């Protein structure tokens, strides 16, 4: 067996009220892709951040090429050949791809104190070539798609090769979680290519892709590393079982049998809604208890349609009717007052306010329901928060904890609660409600969405995967380039993924 390039022994790290890493040991061998799986809050990101020099561990040892190191900073980790691509992309949007790739070590491309642009582009192009990408290094970074930017991040990390003369260890925190299907494939291809020149550790919630790409898989739960498996000797079901500690019943199994009947007038109707090149002539109805799923790739305009309904962006032509009455919301507050709810895709910047408590987040959109006269009835508010924490089994120390401190799945539950406490909700728009959640949290949110719809609320859903979309939706519409290209009644005979994909691309 070859000696490991990176080895950790007995690593522990605690945060206030949380043991994030508990005696974790593992090793990464040369030219190996290692998958790291586990539920939200299992300690995966924390582990990578310790390895990247962002966090100092409380105890334990890190050995790089058999030498013990104390990684003091990201730069120090980089000197040791360890580089990380963060969950939140770290590229600067307003400069060129080349500048981003060479940022921090552009010395070779500087002459007389200014950029030698042709040289800079050349150096960047060489890095991009390593990952087989033909992205133009002179392109403005924010003109790239999310997936392309992910590839640029990979190319950037590979500059470690030149800088350290070692084969680098590359840490990837959920490189695919926010990508659309075809971009996922592109990024996975890059990870496989990396094996030739580096070792890779990557986190993903998509177990099938982990098994597709990784040579070995470590499973974490509750800050501990509970299992190590070779790809050859395990499958998705086994990994799920290891992550959850129990076998998962077929999460998407419950279908039409327990769906309520769809009847009556449309709760929400769109007629020929148009807004420049973003979307055109969008028409659909959502009835009571109906879940309408919208499929489409990035840029299909589906997010924009959802925001237009909620008053979060303008539209130029067409009509929106709510329970038969024409509405046009100038801003979200009007939509909320009319019983329209919206769960945004960007959980941490839009879905929750991290610095406010669980209680304050829950009631923010519906303070009117806990008022006594002109004042907030704080004891009523506390009761309400405690009730919902129990009802949704939200894992938090108490109602006064800052939401930013909870795990992703629990944050999402709080974001949902904000709308569930409404007195008379009519329409709930869900934009990627399961983004970045682990299997267990997904299943819970899944059930929650179904329960909500049973109360007579119409739901507009943008899901992360076609799997989820098909499993949840009563009706599916497909958008491409701003127009509707397909419609499916998904209730009795759901369409296949392929049928939907044909209309998406």
């Amino acid at each position: 067996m070859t000696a490991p390039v990176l080895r950790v022994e007995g690593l522990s790290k605690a945060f206030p009220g949380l043991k994030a890493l508990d005696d974790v040991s593992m090793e990464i061998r040369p030219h190996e892709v290692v998958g790291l799986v586990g539920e939200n809050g299992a300690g995966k990101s924390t582990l990578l951040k310790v390895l990247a020099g962002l966090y100092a561990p409380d105890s334990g040892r890190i050995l790089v090429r058999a030498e013990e190191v104390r990684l003091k900073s990201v730069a120090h980790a980089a000197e040791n050949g360890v580089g990380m691509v963060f969950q939140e992309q770290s590229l600067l949007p307003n400069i060129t791809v080349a500048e981003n790739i060479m940022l921090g070590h552009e010395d070779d491309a500087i002459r007389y104190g200014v950029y030698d642009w042709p040289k800079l582009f050349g150096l960047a192009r060489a890095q991009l070539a390593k990952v087989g990408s033909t992205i133009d290094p002179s392109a403005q970074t924010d003109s790239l798609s999310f997936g392309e930017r992910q590839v640029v991040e990979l190319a950037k990390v590979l500059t470690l090769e030149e800088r350290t003369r070692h084969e680098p260890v590359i840490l990837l925190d959920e490189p695919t979680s926010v990508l659309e299907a075809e971009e996922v494939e592109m990024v996975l291809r890059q990870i496989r290519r990396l094996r030739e020149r580096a070792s890779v550790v990557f986190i993903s919630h998509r177990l099938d892709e982990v098994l597709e790409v990784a040579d070995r898989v470590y499973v974490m739960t509750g800050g501990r590393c509970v299992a190590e498996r070779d790809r050859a000797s395990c499958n998705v079901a086994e990994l799920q079982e290891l992550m959850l500690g129990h076998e998962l019943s077929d999460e998407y199994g419950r279908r039409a049998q327990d769906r309520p009947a769809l009847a009556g007038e449309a709760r929400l109707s769109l007629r020929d809604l148009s807004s420049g090149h973003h979307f055109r002539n969008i028409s659909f109805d959502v009835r009571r208890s109906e879940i309408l799923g919208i499929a489409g790739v990035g840029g299909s305009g589906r997010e924009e349609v959802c925001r237009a309904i909620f008053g979060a962006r303008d539209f130029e032509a067409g009509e929106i009717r709510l329970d038969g009455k024409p509405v046009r919301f100038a801003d979200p507050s009007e939509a909320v007052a009319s019983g329209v709810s919206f769960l945004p895709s960007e959980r941490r910047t839009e879905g929750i306010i991290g610095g406010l408590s669980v209680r304050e987040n829950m009631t923010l959109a519906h303070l009117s329901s806990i008022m006594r006269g002109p004042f907030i009835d704080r004891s009523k508010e506390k009761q309400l928060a405690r009730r919902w924490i129990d009802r949704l089994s939200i894992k938090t120390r108490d109602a006064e904890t800052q939401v930013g401190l909870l795990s992703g799945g629990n944050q999402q539950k709080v974001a949902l609660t904000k709308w569930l406490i409404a007195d008379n909700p009519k329409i709930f728009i869900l934009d990627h409600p399961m983004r970045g959640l682990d299997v267990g949290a997904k299943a819970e949110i899944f059930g929650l969405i179904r329960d909500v719809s049973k109360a007579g609320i119409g739901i507009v859903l943008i899901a992360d995967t076609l799997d989820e979309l098909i499993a949840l939706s009563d009706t599916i519409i497909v958008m491409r380039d701003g127009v509707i290209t397909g419609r499916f009644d998904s209730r009795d005979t759901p369409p296949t993924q392929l049928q939907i994909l044909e209309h998406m691309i």
Partner: protein
Amino acid sequence: MTIASTERGAGKAVLANILGRFAPIVVFAALLFLFGAIQPSFLSAYSLRVLAGESSIILVLAIGQTLVILLGGIDLSMAALASLTSVLLALALPVAGAPGLIGVLLLATLIGAAQGYIHARAQIPSFIVTLAGMGLFSGAALVIGHTTIILQGGYEAVSWLSGRILGVPRPFAFAVGLLLVLLAALRWLPLGRHIYAIGLGELGALLSGVKVARTKIAVFAVSGLCAGLAGMMFVARTHSGNPTIADSLLLPSIAAVVVGGSAITGGVGGLMRTLVGTLTIGVLRVGMAVVGLDPAYEPIAYGILIAGAVAFTIDRSKTGIVK
């Protein structure tokens, strides 16, 4: 796992929270006893009353400023608006008396609201809007007033601000009363909740249906009113209006908010912290005079205090990069 990225922030935030909460009180007490040790008479009832009286106008300005800072903005125009108000009052009180007082305070409120409207609707940073406002109000005060205007009657409308009540200088009692009213509003009115929500995450607040623009306008209206009240207190104290009288209080009033432990980035802090901050600034001002230090050292002391306070209270996990 998405939690980790916030965890380090969490640890720091908890620490910053504890420091932000208690450090200001410790600094205040330390300064008080430091000056008391150098000059024992500093702790006498008389000089504590002077301290309270000296702090009252800064406190009123700092109260308005606190609300704006909680929102994530800043109001640089408050002191200039207070000066302008003092000029307008010196002209209005002799002819219009108490109704004139109310009219001028209403005008100050409207001016504040107008700044809030421009900031919120035209999407111009509050720093810029109020910087322009500062120039505008200073200029207007000079054009209208030229120089000190002695009050020629009508003092009855503000005479209730002179003297003491239960041994406390009335201006200070008034300022603390104002503070308590707004403290209750922040705690029990939806407006208060909305201010914190916007300060901590404007986009999240907007998408929760918070009326962001309206909240901002309301907050700037209150800061305008506070500026007006500060102008009124000057008139009550000096029996006159002056176009530059409050201008030097801009820095100390912002310092009071920050030194009290409210975060300049918004959403974290509150009015009780501002009370502590104001008293700290007051102890510094009065204390340095009592122990006979050159007043020129005063701004140096503010500078050190502000930098120190911000270092303690700023939540770097939220901003990531500090500009």
